[in-house]
């Protein structure tokens, strides 16, 4: 068959009239703040792993109202998230945004920083260094894991290093406690007025703790310290608001089990792939993002356990 110019033109027109399947609706996180204490709101993420559906909204972000405006705890996983966050907080808090705090250097907690570069972004010195070192790599990997939600996102390190355990903004006073164990530097914030602890990823609730930079003994010490403060409420890094201290107990129990399970696997002569397939107690298998997070933990941690189990022989 020979195609006439008219036939070609008609085909072209038909194609134009066809539904534009690539024109998906605009991606939106639809953030819903929940008040958890006087002048303190939490935006609760899902307890899943990163997916193309959740766009990386697996993290808890919070904000507190002060006389100078809102203080935002963690800036979320992407530019798009942080733009929605900024709009929402600006509408809810008449004086706008006073400052941002980064709890630690993992991507879901700081990749919204670029939307707040006109504000002080507080963090521990080591957190700033880690973002500068790994931030671009995290951003690249997040594009791979959640796709278009990340469009335009760039890693921006925090711009203000915390130099004191006291952080007072607009008359509202917070304890800023440098801890660690989940990563090299984990900042815990205690809102003194309401007794609420914002733990970052030192505490998880109904979601498996993540361990890419973990130091388990130090992490457990940090949990003990937070428990000793007897906070009235806890905003964990992932999972629902906690008024009973369950997040501290559960995170501790999982880390204890993980430590024991990896020790046993190494002492029994298992290799990594086998260790990833060991039976998990029901209480931990039921946590969000399993079994992926346990498998990731084996990748992160097993090397040290097997070196401890294998003596030098030459």
């Amino acid at each position, binding site marked *: 068959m020979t195609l006439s110019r008219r036939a070609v033109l008609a085909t072209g027109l038909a194609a134009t009239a066809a539904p534009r399947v690539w024109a998906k609706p605009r991606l939106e996180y639809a953030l819903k703040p929940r008040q958890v204490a006087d002048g303190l709101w939490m935006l609760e993420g899902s307890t899943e792993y990163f997916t193309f559906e959740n766009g990386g909204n697996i993290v808890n972000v919070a904000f507190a109202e002060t006389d100078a405006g809102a203080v935002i705890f963690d800036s979320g996983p992407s530019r798009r998230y942080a733009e929605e966050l900024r709009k929402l907080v600006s509408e809810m808090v008449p004086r706008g945004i006073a400052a941002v705090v980064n709890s630690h250097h993992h991507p879901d907690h700081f990749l919204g920083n670029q939307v707040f570069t006109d504000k002080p972004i507080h963090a521990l010195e080591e957190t700033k260094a880690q973002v500068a070192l790994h931030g671009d790599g995290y951003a*690249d*990997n997040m594009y*791979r894991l959640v796709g278009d939600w990340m469009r335009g996102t760039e890693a921006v390190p925090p711009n203000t290093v915390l130099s004191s355990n006291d952080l007072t903004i607009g008359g509202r006073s917070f304890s800023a406690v440098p801890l660690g164990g989940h990563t090299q530097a984990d900042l815990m914030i205690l809102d003194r007025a309401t007794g609420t602890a914002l733990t970052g990823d030192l505490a998880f609730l109904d979601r498996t703790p993540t361990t*890419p930079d973990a130091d388990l003994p130090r992490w457990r010490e940090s949990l003990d310290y937070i428990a000793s403060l007897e906070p009235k409420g806890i905003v964990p890094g992932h999972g629902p608001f906690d008024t009973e201290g369950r997040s501290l107990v559960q995170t501790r129990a999982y880390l204890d089990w993980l430590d024991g399970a990896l020790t046993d696997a190494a*002492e*029994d*002569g*298992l*290799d*990594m*792939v*086998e260790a*990833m397939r060991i039976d998990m107690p029901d209480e931990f298998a039921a946590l969000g993002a399993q079994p*992926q997070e346990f*498998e*990731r933990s*084996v*990748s*992160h941690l097993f*090397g040290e356990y*097997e*070196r401890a*189990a*294998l*003596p*030098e*022989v*030459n």
Partner: protein
Amino acid sequence: MYKTLFAAMLIATPALALDDPKVTLDDPYRTGMLGYLQKQILDDPSQITLDPRVKVLAPEAAEDSFHVPITVDARGIENVERIALFVDYGPIPHILDYYPGEAEAWLSFRFKIDQATPVRAAVQTTDGAWYLGGTAIDAAGGGCAAPAAAYASDDWEERLGKVRARMWPKTGRVRVIVDHPMDTGLADGIPVFTIQALDFKGLDGKKMARIKLYEPVNEDPTFSLRFAEGALTAPLQVSGRDNNGNEIEATIPFNGAIR
């Protein structure tokens, strides 16, 4: 005219097949690479089939591109002589060859991944036939072209060739870690520097198993071997050398009491 066309097709068909392997497999991963790999790595065998008895176990996604754990289990096949491990996508596809000898047709180890790819195990039996299995691993990648982590410390030369090892006679397991950078030659200014082979022997010199390593094996190679329960009754010697002539020698003590 039709005759001419037909004759032309007859001539054309063998020419099109020049690049094809002797056996064309129905590749479940459809990477377009399998035929090439059959020829390059397996020397184009005339007997090769896909076989579910060749199990390749690995995490779905590589959390650490420098140390991707993998287990190949071909214990369902008898008279295994060689197991070749290779990937479809990567600058150096061939990872290692395992000659189980007196050991079972089972091996765990780690390798450096450069991008998402199927990983294949081809198992050759003593009659020359090949059996093929595999799994797919997703990865952010970049594991092949970076300098070894060892170079961040200043004592890596003192650690070179250090062996950590242990055997579990009751379960027939042997594990060994050899400290070595395993440089691929793909990182800027760092030439290839790899262990070439590791041999496992009895104290009497009896050959027990042999692993030939290529560049993709991870830094500080880590191997787990399995023998039949009760088959290990004495210490094992492990020996090898790298491409710079450094010797690796160690004896894995026998300890029947440990688990």
